[in-house]
């Protein structure tokens, strides 16, 4: 059970940051994961007065406030147009509408959870996070940083021309994913991200280059096998490591095939 002594709604990021320097205090995201834990929080810090609950779209980028809910990601027209619905696909099976109305993108990304659909899809895009003190950091770098007392302010997704496909395997529709997969083509070689390994999502290193227009079935199969070989998988209650590695090659091949279709169509 979680106990909380005080609840505050800071008016500025500086105020929130100061309050968060005390190790007994915690910033609230959607509070959905946090409440399943045990322990005692001195002061719970709610960022609701900082105007971080909107998605702003400009010609160059999307600016996604940390308090934006997963449901907002799911229903945002511009973000889903740019990603061909991949962002919607990544969040639409997370528990239920009520849950997604509460879970925040800031909470999902800050937690760097192994099971995160959200982290998987944003790693496949040209994404950076803005930290209040740490400044703007590429998401791929952020996921390797140890948790500290900074505040995640927003996500920045640059509108690099390209396409992205998101796929996940679930044992049951609204369960945690058994494996997540996002493949993007943002110019140059495709980028493949695998998550719920069950470890944290990672950009798969060392994959063969696949030049545009040369995505034959053989080339896709070889690429998918290379991805499965390069991604460490493990076993837990949802699946064994060997099954996950198999899923890795199947989902990667399917995502690449879809991506090839999107590219050809455009």
């Amino acid at each position, binding site marked *: 059970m*979680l*106990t*909380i*002594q*005080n*609840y505050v709604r800071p008016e500025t990021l500086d105020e929130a940051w100061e309050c968060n320097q005390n190790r007994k205090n915690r910033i*609230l995201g*959607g*509070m*959905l994961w946090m*409440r*399943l834990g045990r322990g005692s929080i001195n002061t*719970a810090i*709610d960022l*609701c007065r900082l105007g971080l609950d909107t998605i702003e779209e400009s010609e160059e980028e999307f600016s996604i406030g940390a308090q934006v809910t997963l449901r907002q990601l799911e229903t945002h027209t511009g973000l889903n147009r740019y990603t061909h619905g991949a962002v919607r696909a990544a969040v*639409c*099976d997370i*528990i*239920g*509408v*009520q*849950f997604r*109305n*509460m879970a925040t993108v800031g909470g999902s990304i800050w937690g760097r959870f192994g099971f995160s659909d959200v982290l998987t899809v944003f790693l496949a895009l040209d994404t950076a996070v803005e930290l209040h003190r740490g400044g703007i950091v590429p998401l791929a770098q952020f996921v390797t940083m140890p948790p500290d007392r900074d505040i995640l302010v927003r996500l920045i997704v640059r509108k690099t021309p390209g396409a992205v496909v998101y796929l996940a395997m679930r044992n049951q*529709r*609204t369960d945690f994913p058994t494996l997540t997969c996002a493949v993007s083509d943002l110019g140059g070689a495709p980028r493949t991200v695998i998550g719920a390994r069950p470890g944290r999502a990672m950009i798969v290193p060392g994959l063969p280059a696949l030049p545009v227009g040369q995505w034959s079935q053989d080339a896709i199969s070889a690429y998918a096998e290379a991805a499965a070989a390069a991604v460490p998988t493990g076993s837990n209650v949802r699946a064994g490591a060997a099954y996950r590695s198999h899923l890795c090659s199947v989902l990667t091949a399917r995502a690449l095939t879809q991506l090839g279709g999107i590219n050809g169509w455009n």
Partner: protein
Amino acid sequence: MELKLTLNGKRIIEEIDADLLLIDFVRAHGCKSVKRGCDTSGCGLCTVLLDGTPVLSCSMLAARADGHDVRTLEGLQEEAADFVGFIAAQGADQCGFCNPGFVMNTIALLRENPDPTDDEIRAFLAGNLCRCSGYDGQLRGIRAYLNAKKREG
């Protein structure tokens, strides 16, 4: 801390503990339709509408509802009465425990999307668990309600 909110149209000002959950607050105010099914944010039984948006009251601090409008099934009897008969007519309610959460989320669905497809109904209600049925009765009931509404024009 002092909490000010509107619960089913009634203004309430009350001193609360920081870790009081919204479910315990509304139940203390007589809204016993709001129940704990799983207590792990997964079953949808504790659904309330916060400014019209369905949320899980078992997972929200009452403090976070400060300044907002909270509705439970007790305050939405008329809107629920429109369609619950159609669901009951399909024999969808067996033990009935999941019913309040189902009804609350169906209200939210129909407000947002008055003419949903079967897939849209399934997707919107996926976070409401029922241990007795296979969900088909609820789906048939909502479909029958939508069809009846269309016939009325």
